[in-house]
Each structure stands twice: as C-alpha cells, then as structure tokens.
C-alpha cells in the first residue's frame, strides 16, 4: 500500500471546448485560498494583442496584481501557458510552456520558458493558460484532467519532497497505466527554502520508462510555487496528432513542418550534433574565444575547460531519443544513466541525471573553478531534485567564492567551509544546505542581490567592490556568458526585461567574433530585432533552437545571415497555417513588440523599468581588478591606445583600469541611448505614448501610468 494520501477538496466538471486554430479561447483560474476554480473566456482584443503564451501570462498577471504586490502575497499569480502553435507534434520544438509571476529576487515580472508536456496538455485539456492565485497551508496537488473533463484539488500528505521521487509517484498515480498521458509540474525543498527555486516539468520517456525533467529555472518561479503551498500541478491528456490543434490549413502546416524537420535531420549531424551532445559543444568553443565564465566571470578561459567539453559528455550521455516534446528532431535533452552521487540523500544509489546543458556546466563547473564533470552532474541532479535553478545557484556560489578569496567573508561566516574556487565538496554542501534552508547555503539561496546586502550589513564586507563583482542585474543572476568584450551582449543582458538571461539576445559571436555590427546604430538595431523575434517564440509556445542552432547550408550567402530569414519565413508560414491569420516576418516582430513594450511598462508599474534599472555590475563590462587587467594587458592597453586614443605611457595598472572603466561605462550609456531611441522609448527607458498607441497597448491604466511617470507624448 502506498504511504501517501490524497484528499479531494474541490472538483469542477467542465465541458472541454474544441480547439480552434490553436486556441481554446479560455483560461483556467484557481485560487488556493478559498479553493475557487473558474473558467474565464479570452477576449478578442486580448487574443489579438497578446497572441498567447507569455503574452497571455503577462495580461493575466497584470490584472491580478497591484503595484504594491510582493512575490509572497496571496494575490501574486503564477501563470503558465503554451501558445497557439504549442503542442504541434510534427513541427520541431513545439512543446514549450511559459511561466510568469512576480519574482522574489527581482520584485518585478519574471518569465521562464521550459520544455516537457505540460503546456500542450493544459491547452488540449481546454485552457490556453492557467492562473493560480492565493495560498494554502495544506500541501495541494492540482489535477487538470482533460480526458475526463475535471479539474480537481487534492490535499495530500506523505508525498516525497524531492521532485524526482514526487513526479515518479504522481505519474504512476494519475497515469493509471498510461504514464505518457501525464505531465507533472513540481518544485522541491530547495525552492521552498530559498528564493532561487525552479520548476520541474516532466515528459515521459517510453524507452527508458521514466518521467524526464526540464526546468523553468529563472527568477525564483519555483519559490513562488512552493510559497503558495503547491505540491504539484498535474495535467492529463491522451493521444496527440497534427489535428489536435485543429489547424486552419493542415496541408500548409504539414508542408512547412516537413521542410524544417527534414532539414534538421539532414544538417544537425553536419553541424552541432545537438541530437547527440545537446549544447555541450559550446563549452570548448566559448573557452577558446575567452567567453566561458570562470572564477565568477573574472576570466573567459581555463586550460582545464576541455574536461567539461563535449568529448566527455558524448561518452557520459545515455544514447537514445531525447526530445522533450513529441516528434522534435532536435531532441537535445540528454541525460546520464546510472549516475552514482557521492553526497546527499542519494549517495551511493544509481540515479538518472537529466542534463547537464551548457549553462549548468558553466555555472556549476567552470565559473566555480570546478572542472570535474562528475561534480557538475551531481550539482545538476541535486538542483533539479531540490527545485533549484542551476544558473542562479552557480552564479551565487561563484560570487560567495570570490568574496571568500578576497577576504570579504571568511570561514566564520561560511560555517567553517573553506570556500575557495574549485572546492567541490563545499559547492555541493551549499546545495544540500539550500534544500533544508540552513547554514551558509540559506544565505546563498537568497540570491546575489540579497547576499551583497547581508555580507555588507552582517559581515562588514565592502559594498562597493561587491557591487562590481556580484553578477546580478535587476536582481537576477547572470546566465553563463562573458560579456566584457562585447558591448552588444552587455546590452543583450543589461537591457533584457527580466534581467541578464540570454533568451532575449545572444549577440556575442556576431558582435565580437564576426564584428557584424560595428556602430551603435547597428547594435541598437540588433537589440531591437533579436529580442523581438526571440520573444515571439514565447508567445507561440515554441523553442528557439530550430531557428538558429541548425542553419541552412546557403544561409551564409544571404543578406542577413544572423537572422536566418529562411527559417523566419517558415515560422510565419507555420503561424499562418495553424491560426489562419496570414502573417509575414514583419508581422511576427510586431506581435512581439506589443508584448515586449507591455512587459517594460509592467516593470515600470512595479517600481522598475527605468534607465537606472538597466545598469550592469562593472564585471560584465570590463576588468574590475588589477589581476584581471594584467591577465589580458595587451588587449586592454591596445584598446586604450587605438580605440580611445589614450596616452598610457608611464601609467600604472590602477590608472589604466580607471581609464578603461571610464571609457567602457560611457560606451554602455551611449548604447542605452541608441537602443531606447530605436525602441521608441524616452531617454529614461520608458515607452512613449506614441509607441504604445502604435502597438495598440494604450489601455487606460497604461496611459495613466505613463503620464504619472512624466511621459506625456
């Protein structure tokens, strides 16, 4: 007999609507405080303006919260949506869910996209989006049963804490012998006891007969989930075909899907082999270009980096199909079978690790000065099991390690840990402490912004130097790319709406390696077009990898190779085929522009969203310490002399550091000006009234907010 218990507390029977052209035109609302379950229609204006996915999430959240709402208030809403194209099994990368909520670390809106089956199953069950408000003291499981047309709330007891064990049990319990019909969303104890919790979304792997996991990692979405008292959300659906989305033009859909799918099958083996090694090829490529973060983003290169490269993971990954959505030919979600952790509750047991991907390798490996693939896999495993974001965990521990090395904190603050770079045992111990919310791990689990405040206030650490080396902006920890030598990517991180995550713009190679955008105007254009197109994937429920990670062989001969316009046209065809709304590439950009500007205004409403909030820690812009400068002295001296026409004769490293900093910070401010102008924003980084009118987001409360913020035209 199982030793866990489900007590049904509320059930709503509903009639599932037929999906029309990728939409159900209704959303599911649940309030955990009063056990309310409602179904809300989607207004035509909402559909036209916000498209779906992240757009729907933002609109639901905007209407749920007030400017005074904080992440742990009951009215904060956790929203999850697919998008009109989400759930198409014949087009690669069509299974993404997008999560949005108010973040515990940024205080503003956070969005995070994730693979797995949940978003599509939610939609096929009859809901374009899910909105959860309220809080419960009980442990609550939400069951959305699209097959039997029921939404149920259960109070549970006895279920395991960690995500792996929990999802396995829920998959079996609700699957009733059909585990592929189930997708589980859960967090874990780390999410409950830190502010950097992630959400685990499952997909069922029939070959390995196990639930597999993808993570919505960024900004503490898992911590919001845990704070609400949610144990899990489970969606149940049955067979998925190309007809399930009821596309407007099935023949057109099949034609374009076949083109893209076949191209990936043909070209991925000739390019990055993502179907075999995922994103691990990036490790040595980044390292060779001085772009792989090591030692808290001090440097971009280390001679031991190949220990974490694709050669190693090619051997470690369990071969087989690893698509996190049905029929995806990229199939990059690899894992390690029969891995045996050396620490923690699974010590000595064989487990399956879902990952690692590049970000985890860099964050929990090189950036900590750890070049051991076993430790990275163990960090990956426990972060997932505990519901922790591997990017924030890596960047936060890296910051703590550098503070330790600089003498800003010592072993009396770390509970006796000698927190030097490369200390594998300490890094793992911090992760285990995060899970129980104790020890130094409890402090690290608050994220870099709060760590800086705690170290200064309680440990007397120098706030100024921590501001320079603490790798967060807007309260979000940096993802794992070096930006010192790419002004465009500094903008890609600093001007990103939610904070420094690369899903808005990844321009490092185009800017630094290829020098495709030498002027401010060109950089600004790139920082307009790329964030807009990348946003579009989040509106529609898609993964961006098929767009520009596998590329047509003749792409390099096109006018704008970085945009991969052949694929952009395919995506426009795909959108038209499903929705019946004829769209071209420019239309896709305009769809995103509305949502993008709305999110910027949402930031403003929450007390952020101005120029000052786009600032970066100087470590992201240039060398902070003399040792960093001297490690690349030729590069920096040359730049001072040739680019900035500075006289460095007889100047000390300290003086040259200061000169370089002045120039580079000026460049970044000039970049802000150019980007704001291109985006139709004021010099303070706020969308103008003209911009919001052009984009049809001139809602009364938006215009009132702009006026109150001094934007009158």
């Amino acid at each position: 007999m199982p030793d866990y218990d489900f007590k049904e507390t509320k059930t709503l029977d509903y009639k599932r609507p037929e999906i029309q052209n990728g939409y159900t035109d209704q959303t599911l609302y649940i309030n955990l405080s009063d056990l309310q379950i409602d179904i809300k229609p989607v207004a035509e204006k909402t559909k036209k303006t916000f498209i779906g996915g992240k757009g729907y999430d933002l609109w639901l959240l905007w209407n749920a919260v007030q400017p005074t709402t904080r992440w742990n208030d009951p009215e904060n809403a956790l929203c999850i949506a697919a998008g009109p194209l989400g759930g198409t099994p014949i087009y690669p990368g069509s299974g993404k869910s997008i999560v949005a909520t108010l973040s515990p670390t940024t205080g503003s809106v956070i969005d995070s996209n994730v693979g797995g089956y949940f978003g599509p199953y939610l939609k096929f069950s009859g809901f374009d989006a899910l909105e959860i408000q309220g809080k419960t003291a009980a442990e609550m499981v939400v069951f959305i049963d699209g097959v039997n047309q029921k939404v149920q709330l259960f109070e549970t007891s006895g279920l395991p804490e960690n995500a792996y064990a929990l999802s396995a049990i829920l998959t079996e319990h609700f699957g009733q012998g059909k585990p592929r019909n189930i997708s589980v969303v859960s967090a874990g104890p780390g999410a409950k006891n830190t502010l950097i919790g992630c959400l685990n979304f499952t997909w069922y792997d029939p070959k390995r007969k196990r639930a597999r996991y993808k993570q919505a990692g960024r900004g503490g979405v898992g911590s919001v989930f845990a704070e609400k008292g949610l144990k899990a959300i489970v969606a149940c659906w049955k067979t998925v075909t190309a007809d399930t989305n009821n596309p407007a033009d099935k023949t057109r859909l099949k034609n374009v899907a076949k083109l893209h799918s076949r191209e990936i099958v043909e070209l991925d083996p000739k390019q990055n082999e993502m179907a075999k090694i995922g994103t691990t090829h990036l490790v040595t490529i980044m390292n060779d270009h001085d772009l792989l973060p090591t030692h808290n983003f001090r440097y971009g290169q280390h001679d031991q980096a190949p220990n974490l490269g694709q050669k190693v993971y090619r051997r470690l990954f369990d071969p087989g199909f690893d698509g996190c959505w049905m029929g995806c030919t990229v199939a990059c979600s690899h894992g390690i079978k029969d891995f045996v952790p050396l620490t923690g509750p699974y010590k000595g047991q064989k487990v399956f690790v879902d990952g690692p991907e590049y970000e985890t390798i860099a964050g929990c490996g090189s950036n900590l000065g750890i070049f051991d693939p076993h430790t990275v896999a163990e960090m990956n495993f426990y972060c997932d099991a505990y519901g922790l974001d591997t990017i924030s965990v890596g960047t936060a521990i890296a910051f703590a390690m550098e503070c330790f090395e600089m003498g800003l904190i010592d072993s009396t603050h770390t509970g006796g840990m000698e927190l030097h770079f490369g200390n594998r045992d300490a890094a793992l111990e911090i992760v285990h402490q995060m899970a129980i919310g104790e020890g130094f791990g409890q402090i690290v689990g608050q994220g870099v912004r709060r760590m800086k405040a705690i170290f200064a206030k309680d440990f007397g650490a120098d706030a100024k130097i921590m501001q320079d080396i603490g790798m967060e902006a807007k309260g979000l920890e940096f993802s794992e790319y070096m930006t010192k030598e790419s002004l465009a990517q500094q903008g890609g991180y600093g001007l990103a709406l939610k904070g420094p995550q690369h899903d808005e713009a990844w321009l490092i190679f185009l800017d630094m390696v290829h020098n495709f955008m030498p002027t401010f105007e060109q950089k600004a254009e790139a920082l307009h077009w790329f964030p807009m197109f990348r946003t579009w994937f989040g509106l529609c429920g898609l993964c961006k990898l098929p767009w520009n990670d596998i590329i047509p062989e003749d792409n390099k001969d096109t006018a704008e190779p970085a945009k991969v316009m052949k694929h952009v046209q395919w995506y426009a065809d795909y959108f038209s085929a499903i929705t019946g709304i004829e769209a071209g590439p420019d239309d896709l950009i305009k769809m995103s522009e509305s949502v993008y500007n709305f999110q910027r205004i949402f930031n403003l409403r929450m007390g952020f969203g101005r120029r000052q909030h786009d600032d970066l820690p100087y470590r992201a812009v240039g060398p902070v310490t003399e040792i960093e400068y001297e490690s690349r002295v030729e590069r920096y001296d040359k730049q001072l002399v040739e680019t900035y026409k500075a006289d460095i004769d007889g100047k000390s490293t300290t003086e040259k550091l200061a000169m370089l900093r002045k120039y580079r910070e000026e460049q970044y401010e000039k970049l802000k000006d150019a980007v704001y102008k291109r985006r139709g924003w004021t010099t303070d980084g706020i969308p103008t009234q003209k911009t919001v009118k052009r984009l049809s987001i001139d809602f009364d409360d938006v215009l009132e907010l702009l006026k109150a913020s001094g934007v009158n035209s």
Partner: protein
Amino acid sequence: MIQVAGKQIAWREGMTVSDLLDELGDPHPYAVVRINQQYVTRPNFAQTLVPDDAEVYLIPMVAGG
C-alpha cells in the same frame, strides 16, 4: 583526401585548418569547424593540423544561447 562541405579536397602533409579554408576560397568568417568529432575554433585554425581522410564540417556559429 578530405571531405569538406560536400567536396573532396586533396590532403597534404602539414595542412592546417587555415590552409584548408584558404584552399576552399570561402570568404565566410567561420568561427568554428568540426574535424570528425573534434571542434576547432578560429584562434586555433592556424596551428591545428587536418588529418588525412578527415571529414570537416564548417559550423555556422550564429547561435549559442
């Protein structure tokens, strides 16, 4: 003989990636090539030898994140 981008190129002793790209005459600024399963980046093109019978792939590195 080396296989590269659907073509066959004659191999010679001491041939580097830079030599191979020169011989191909492709002006695209490749940042990465793959020789069999080994990724080689532009900073290493001039000193990386291409072995005989290698399969070389020219990687269009526009993505990453």
